[in-house]
């Protein structure tokens, strides 16, 4: 239970950091703000890309920025529902 909640919370935190930075943040500050080891961050980062919650954009100078996709915004909106449901039925 704790593990699953922790995992959902971390995903929510990462997405929330991106949103609160006007939906555009570089990978290094995102790693710093998320308070995780590089290895752990990379695991979550790859999962979020794979799930299409975030995407990588490049500006004209080729710098990488991370932004939320519609699915990422949806997750933030529904986060409380997911958490409530998981808790209610011990999933």
């Amino acid at each position: 239970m704790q593990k699953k909640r922790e995992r959902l919370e971390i995903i929510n935190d990462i997405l929330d950091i991106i949103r609160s930075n006007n939906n555009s943040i570089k990978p290094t500050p995102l790693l710093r703000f998320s308070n995780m080891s590089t290895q752990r961050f990379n695991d979550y980062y790859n999962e979020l890309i794979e799930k299409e919650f975030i995407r990588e954009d490049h500006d004209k100078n080729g710098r990488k920025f991370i932004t939320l996709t519609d699915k990422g915004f949806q997750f933030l909106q529904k986060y409380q529902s997911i958490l409530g449901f998981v808790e209610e039925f011990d999933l």
Partner: protein
Amino acid sequence: MPPVHPIWIFGSEVVYFIAVAILCLGIYLRTKDIYALSRLKTIFHFRNIFLYFFLAYAFRFVYLFILLSSDLGFRSLMIFQIFGMLVVSYFSTMAILSVLMTVLVKRISTERKHVNILLHISSIVLLAVVFVTGSLYVLAIFHIAILAFAAITMILKRKGSHFSNQNRITYILLFIFWIINLFEFGRGNVQFITQLGVHAISVAIFLSIYLRLRKRLKNAEKKGKTRNNK
């Protein structure tokens, strides 16, 4: 007691099926977004319980409809009866195994890749056993064995268990009332009034799950809105 006219039995079955179908599909559809976003295996199995129970109850209804239509003087085809029995056996085993997976999946550190295929294969094997024996009682015995296994697992792992008593009871009741429903197939063994009681309790179990889900989601939505507006 005087025998009940088949039309009354049919009417009660219609009401029962509609109630179960609305509740099962309601639970399945209301959790669609939650699963799509979280992709949690436990939610996947939880939703499958209600999808497969809906299908099992639907074909149970078709099966009983064929039986009752012969009581009302219509000719029924034996082949449809056998088909109905096999489909009910397949979907109900899938539902029961989904309950088991909901209970067990968190205890398995890495879920096997093809666990879902394994569930389908197990259900097909059981379907073959029902086909060969031609008896749903055999199916009920297998389901009781799965129930016993799930119950023992829950009891053995009670220490530090993530399952609240409420959820344990709900899952066990779902099992028990399905098995009673299976025995109802041998109509004539059960009195009409007893049948109505079983139907009412079965619907109450599904309704309690649906209401808990609805309440939780409503509260969560409110909480989410307040949080997002901050």
